[in-house]
């Protein structure tokens, strides 16, 4: 059983606190940098990547690419500016994808 790591990717103020918990923290200045970092993390053995919604908003295709892969799991978390509702929308989209309609 290989050891996997957990990464937190987002703007500096949002992710700094996770460092205290012992997670690998990758602050990114802008969406472009976050995108590059995400690809690098996906290549390494990160099983879970927490990504702030603020950056996720501009990274749709990149996230979709890893959606059907077993690793990494890209999980959206609200950044310091609050939730944009993208995470919830993704849950909704999964339901629509599976059922064909939003039934919840």
């Amino acid at each position, binding site marked *: 059983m290989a050891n996997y790591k957990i990464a937190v990717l987002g703007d500096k103020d949002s992710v700094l606190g996770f460092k205290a918990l012992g997670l690998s923290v990758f602050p990114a200045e802008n969406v472009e940098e976050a995108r590059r970092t995400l690809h690098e993390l996906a290549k390494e053995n990160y099983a879970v990547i927490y990504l702030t919604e603020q950056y996720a908003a501009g990274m749709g295709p990149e996230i979709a690419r890893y959606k059907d892969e077993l*690793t990494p*799991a890209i999980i959206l978390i609200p950044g310091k500016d609050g939730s944009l509702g993208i995470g*919830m929308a*993704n849950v909704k989209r999964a*339901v629509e994808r599976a059922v064909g309609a939003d039934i919840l």
Partner: protein
Amino acid sequence: MPAINVNPTRQELTRLKGRLKTSIRGHKLLKDKRDELMKQFMDVVRENRALRKKVEEGLMRAHGSFTVASALMSSEMLEQSLLYPKQAVELDMTFQNIMSVNVPIYHFRTKSDDAGEIYPYGFAATSGELDGAVDALSGVFQDMLKLAEIEKTSQLLAEEIEKTRRRVNALEYVKIPQMQEAIKYISMKLDENERANTIRLMKVKDMLLKEAIEGKREADVRAVEAFGGHLENPESV
């Protein structure tokens, strides 16, 4: 009639019948799989929604405390306090099989079990709000990991359901009717050939019979004439 491109042979018919049987069985199995996946998926997705709500609220609270902490401390000081974590987290991943979909299960291990180890700084130079923020984060972290597991599971299940549903529909509305059509076409063609054969045989038999009668009649006429007689109407013999 749709374009059917099959050879109307008995061999092809047997092959198609076999395939139809397999397809119907496959369709039934896939349908069962889809239903069961759907059941599992609904459970997972409900949990996913609840958990996401909880995590988002928890994180917002933690971010709030952080904002207060960063207001009370200089950003350099804050960064410095958190720069070298004492705690480290390792993640183990095993897989669970839900209806042939592999979903991850995470087990995380912290390097040290001491709950106080999450504060990687001395308390003298930092504000109390930072403690609160770090504490809130570590409280929500357990749920975050669970969320990662469940959200990935729901994504993978959704993908599998979509795939299965497509297969079920393709079998139900395209493949099976097509094969039934082809089977019907072949069996009708074969029946038609059979009938054509029978008719041909009957015709040949008729022709042979006619020839035989004709020959006989000529022989009769010749025999009567040989005895000096004369047939009024040779047809009536």
